[in-house]
């Protein structure tokens, strides 16, 4: 069980982690990038989730919205994840012991499970129709769960900044 704490100790002593910790502007600059990418992830995926719930974009098929929106989500997520990892490396041990940080990571795993289940099962059964009757109960659940989990991720992310 000492593997993760040892990794954290190693990570924050790398030249990257040290540089971000010691610089006055690197942390806020990377954090700004993290926030920019995060709002794009949450905003874009919420468009799909609201379509799945049949709340928004009702005149377009789920397939079309899925194709238009998810490239934004994935590319933004890549940026958010890299920037987030860099922020983590500046004080890895501190974040590892931080409750909202841990909750955020668990929530991201739940989001991955929800997305994987939707992509591999529910989405495959959705046709090209934009008829409300075509939206399965499973798709609506995936959309609702996605929205709730992302709101919780943002809340935990913000909460990290208010804890020691």
């Amino acid at each position, binding site marked *: 069980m000492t593997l993760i704490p040892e990794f954290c100790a190693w990570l924050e002593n790398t030249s990257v982690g040290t540089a971000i910790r010691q610089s006055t502007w690197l942390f806020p600059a990377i954090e700004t990038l993290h*926030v920019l990418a995060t*709002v794009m992830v949450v*905003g*874009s995926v*919420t468009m799909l989730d609201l379509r799945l719930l049949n709340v928004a974009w009702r005149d377009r098929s789920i397939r079309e919205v899925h194709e*238009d929106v998810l490239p934004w989500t994935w590319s933004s997520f890549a940026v958010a994840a890299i920037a987030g990892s860099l922020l983590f490396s500046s004080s890895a041990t501190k974040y590892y012991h931080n409750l909202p940080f841990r909750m955020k990571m668990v929530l991201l795993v739940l989001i991955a499970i929800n997305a994987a289940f939707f992509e591999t099962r529910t989405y495959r059964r959705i046709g090209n129709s934009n008829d409300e009757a075509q939206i399965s109960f499973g798709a609506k659940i995936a959309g609702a769960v996605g929205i709730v989990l992302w709101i919780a991720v943002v*809340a935990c992310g*913000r909460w990290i900044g208010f804890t020691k």
Partner: protein
Amino acid sequence: MIQSFCDWLSNTSLSLTIQTVMWIIPAVQTIHILCVAVVMSCMAMLDLRLIGVAGKRQPISRMVSKFVPWVWGALPVLLTTGIILTIGEPSRELLNPYFRAKMLMLAIVTGITFVVQRQNKKDTSFWELRRGTAATAGAFSLLLWVGIITAGRWIAYY
């Protein structure tokens, strides 16, 4: 003058409540960021469409009428949560150059968005027929939104 206003505001009972109840500021900031997510994703997609690099499957007019109402819906919530945060920490915001830059950029981008929407309402082919102007408006809008988020985050580091 602003300083004395901040001093007065931070001693009102409303401000003192926001300052002392630990969860209010993080909770309000969370709502603020979620609304920023709505605005930023809508505007990034619309602006890149105006510039002509993304979303070409849909006409500009449809994207304007689809996305801009979400911005007008989110802005009042952003304003309300922003005011609550400002009442809680007046001098952190009102005396902060990043905050002032953010408000200035917000005023300009609101004007651009208003004009984009108004011309689109008058004539749905307006922006399709003026690709250069559309691209310029989109580029300025995108830069301003990125600037607003950047300034917003840097308020905390002044």
